[in-house]
């Protein structure tokens, strides 16, 4: 499947999950926060101010569409060092991470 149709399917999926408003459980949220701060943090910085990868603070993400950001997490970005994280999280969890990154990411 091409990455474009991947993204399309994913966007549709996001729309449907948004309607369901499914939030990860509190324990899973804690795991995801740890994953983002520690493991995403090895490139984006533990405080998300950027490193080899770009900064992920609300001000940096403001003008970017949430679906695209969630797709970047889930599928990675070919041609850059950004890997796909789909073996470690669901699409809904990627969307939850984006939502938190765009507001204020938990400690």
């Amino acid at each position, binding site marked *: 499947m091409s990455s474009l149709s991947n993204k399309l399917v994913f966007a549709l999926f996001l729309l449907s999950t948004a309607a369901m408003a499914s939030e990860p459980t509190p324990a899973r949220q804690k795991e995801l926060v740890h994953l983002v701060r520690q493991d995403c943090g*090895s490139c984006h910085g533990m*405080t998300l101010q*950027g*490193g*080899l990868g770009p900064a992920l603070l609300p001000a940096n993400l403001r003008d970017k569409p949430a679906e695209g950001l969630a797709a970047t997490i889930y599928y990675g970005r070919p041609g850059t060092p950004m890997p796909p994280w789909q073996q470690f999280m669901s699409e809904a969890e990627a969307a939850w991470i984006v939502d938190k990154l765009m507001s204020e990411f938990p400690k």
Partner: protein
Amino acid sequence: MKTMRLFLCLSLALLLNACAGPQLRGTGDLGLVIERASGHVTLVNTSVRQPYARIEGLGDLSHASAVYSRDGRYAFIFGRDGGLTKIDLLEAKIVKRVIQSGNAIGGSISQDGRIVVAQNYAPGGIKAFDAETLELLSEVPAEYAPGKFSKVVGLADVPGNKFAYALFEGGEIWVTDFSQPKQPTTQRYPAGKQPYDGLVTPDGRYFLAGLFGEDGVAMLDLWQPEKGARKILENYGRGEEKLPVFKMPHLRGWSVAQGKAYLPAIGRHEVLVVDVATWKEVGRIPVRGQPVFVMARPDGRQVWVNFAFPDNGKMDVIDTLAGKVVHAFEPGKGILHMEFAPRGENVWLSARDDNKVLIYNTMNFSKQGEIAADSPSGIFFTTRAARIGF
């Protein structure tokens, strides 16, 4: 009577002074542990394998690293937030701290020990500081094309008060000569796509930059730089499989043992073995994850390997004589870094998610102790003070 009293006072003062005076000691068995989440460093003694002091107030220490003054007394710590902190290991205190950039990735110290150089992501470039005062001496922006700045990776000190480094976006190796610290001169060498880290060989002759954007490693012979950087190990790299890389390997702290170099294969569950006379690949050793640090015990008999997420709880130990993994274990959660005791009888591992530093005997692999630390990452012992590229 009066003179007697004066004499007594004087001798008492002398006695007190002698008691209160500092106890003399060397620093060869000291070191520090970065506590990345809380901006602390814990100072440790490798003879008794215990911490002896803790210093706070170092800012954002995620991905922090340290280099030592040549007398092994002072550590220079480069924080992610651009903080450069000079610590006195004997007095266990911060001597000086400056914020030198917005986003830093490490640093190095010159051959003569007088210049500390920080490598920065933002604004991309390097900055040189007086090691005594941390006063800014000069800077070299990594402007590889008009108006375009690159992140700097792989900074290494090389002989002649020079520093070699690579430009991630710029795809070049630069060598800057600080023999006149305020008027540095820089030579540029095309290297390849997206160098992600670099190293200098222990003799200071070769600078290698691992490439992310293409297969292979760029190598510059610093004894004959006019020949330019050439590509080695073109089959090394992510190859056809192109496994996703969940953490960039670190090349600094790499290993040369018995005439062979052991390098992390990017995007592969392998350690690459390279003949350092020919720079040809002579073997690949399967391991249990994507290697991050591949470090030789000081005698070169063993090479210890830790791994990228999600295998970062594992450690594999390669016997360089057997050419294979002889010990595999899971010492803790989030093993980020390791450091060998000066002559290698034990190794210290930071287990980030266990909030511990674990100490293992390298002969029989038994655990010798542990030290509490808050999200420990880098461990740096003063033996680095005398090594090129550390």
